[in-house]
């Protein structure tokens, strides 16, 4: 049996008095690409922020590599991409990477490597504020890869990217999972579930499904994840 990289048990998170995550339970294994799929406002970002240790938990349990998410020794092991690209717009791509690289204890070689992985070789000396939204999102992703973390929590990393780049990034996620990392990648685009080993379907803070895409389609007797999502919602009586 594989030890769960991220494990939640009856997890409840309240934000501004609203139950953003409502009693959810799941286990995520290392070496798997897990998609956290659901519409806007379903609690994906709140859950991801809790996993990386910046969101308070109301009740239940959440552990990351067997530790509480806020544990100090976990920080070098987690890479995080927030929903809005949190980078310094008044620095160049390379300056952003060098700063975060120092903090994540990454080598100069790795900085060059991640620039290649997100296909920003041509933009390395450009100020982040002059980049397009998609390019900034890729800088944000590159920062999360620094330090070679065991767990990658990526909040909508492919939003706004052209289809070719999106495909390349999903291939990169596959490669990283094959290296033994645990990846949790959120998206509000149901089609992106196709690329994941496991999908967690969320709606209004509740977890509707956790298993493979194929198992979901078989279970709901549907051909697309979107139809399967609607079928699950209807069955739940929402």
């Amino acid at each position, binding site marked *: 049996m594989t030890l769960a990289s991220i494990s939640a048990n009856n997890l409840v998170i*309240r*934000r*501004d008095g609203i139950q953003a995550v409502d009693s959810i339970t799941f286990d995520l294994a290392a070496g798997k690409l897990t998609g956290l799929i659901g519409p806007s406002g379903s609690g994906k970002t709140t859950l991801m*922020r809790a996993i*990386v*240790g*910046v*969101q*308070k938990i109301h009740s239940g349990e959440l552990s990351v590599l067997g530790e509480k998410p*806020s544990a*100090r020794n976990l*920080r*070098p092991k*987690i890479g*995080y991409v*927030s929903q*809005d690209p*949190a*980078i*310094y*717009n*008044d*620095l160049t791509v390379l*300056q952003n990477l060098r*700063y*975060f690289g*120092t*903090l*994540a*204890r990454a080598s100069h070689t790795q900085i060059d490597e991640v620039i290649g992985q997100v296909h920003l070789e041509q933009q390395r000396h450009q*100020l982040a504020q002059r980049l397009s939204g998609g390019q900034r999102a890729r800088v944000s992703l590159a*920062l999360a890869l620094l330090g070679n973390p065991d767990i990658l929590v990526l909040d909508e990393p492919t939003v706004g990217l052209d289809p070719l780049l999106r495909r390349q990034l999903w291939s990169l996620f596959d490669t990283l999972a094959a290296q033994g990392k645990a990846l949790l990648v959120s998206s509000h685009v149901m089609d992106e579930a196709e690329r994941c080993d496991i999908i967690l379907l969320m709606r209004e803070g509740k977890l509707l499904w956790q298993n493979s895409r194929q198992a979901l389609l078989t279970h709901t007797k549907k051909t697309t994840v979107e139809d399967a999502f609607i079928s699950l919602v209807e069955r739940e009586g929402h």
Partner: protein
Amino acid sequence: MYHIRATLATTARIWRQLSHDPRTVALIFVVPCVLMSLLRWLYDDNVAVFNHIAPALLGIFPFTLMFIITSITTLRERVSGTMERLMVLPIGKLDLLLGYMIAFGVLAIIQALLVSTLILYGFNLDIAGPHWFLTVMALADALLGTALGLFVSAFARTEFQAVQFMPAFVLPQVLVGGLLVPLAHMPDLLEHIAYYLPLTYAIDALNSVAKNTDITGDAWRDVWVVVAFSIGALLLGALTLRRKTN
């Protein structure tokens, strides 16, 4: 070793950001010099008044400017999401704040040197005590402004609120700090309050060096009080900087 590297990397990062914004850097250095020149011009027929207030202003300018810059910069970090990103990394909160302190502290040194050089040698400010002490005190005040700015930025949610902290935190200290009315001539309650405010000690030290040929024991006490307030504000800043939010 990691903590030192993280602190220095933060300092270097802030300087790089500023290097892409030369207008802000120019404003940091030019505005206090222009204001001091304006003041000197205003009292052209009564230089004694300028000599009386300029030393104290040498402390107030860097304090105010560093307070505003630091509080807005840290707030911007919080609003843009980079602060949250940093909080996920192994960097300590104090590493980050010290990085800020050093980055803006060096700017403050340059600013203090420029303004004190201007008033001492450009305007021949007549002070009894050693010139270097004015610069040291101006630097201590700039560090105090930086530390307080870091601390209070935790209570602002928008940049507009952060700017409002200037009249809320800085102006009262200027008003009751002994610049406008000597402490002894103030109503008792205000005088008592003034002794709990750090800028009072800064103004006292600067006035003292203007009047006395030697640095008095009280002036040194004032320096240490300002430094102690700065360290206290920095530690409070680290405590109020939260990794987790609700």
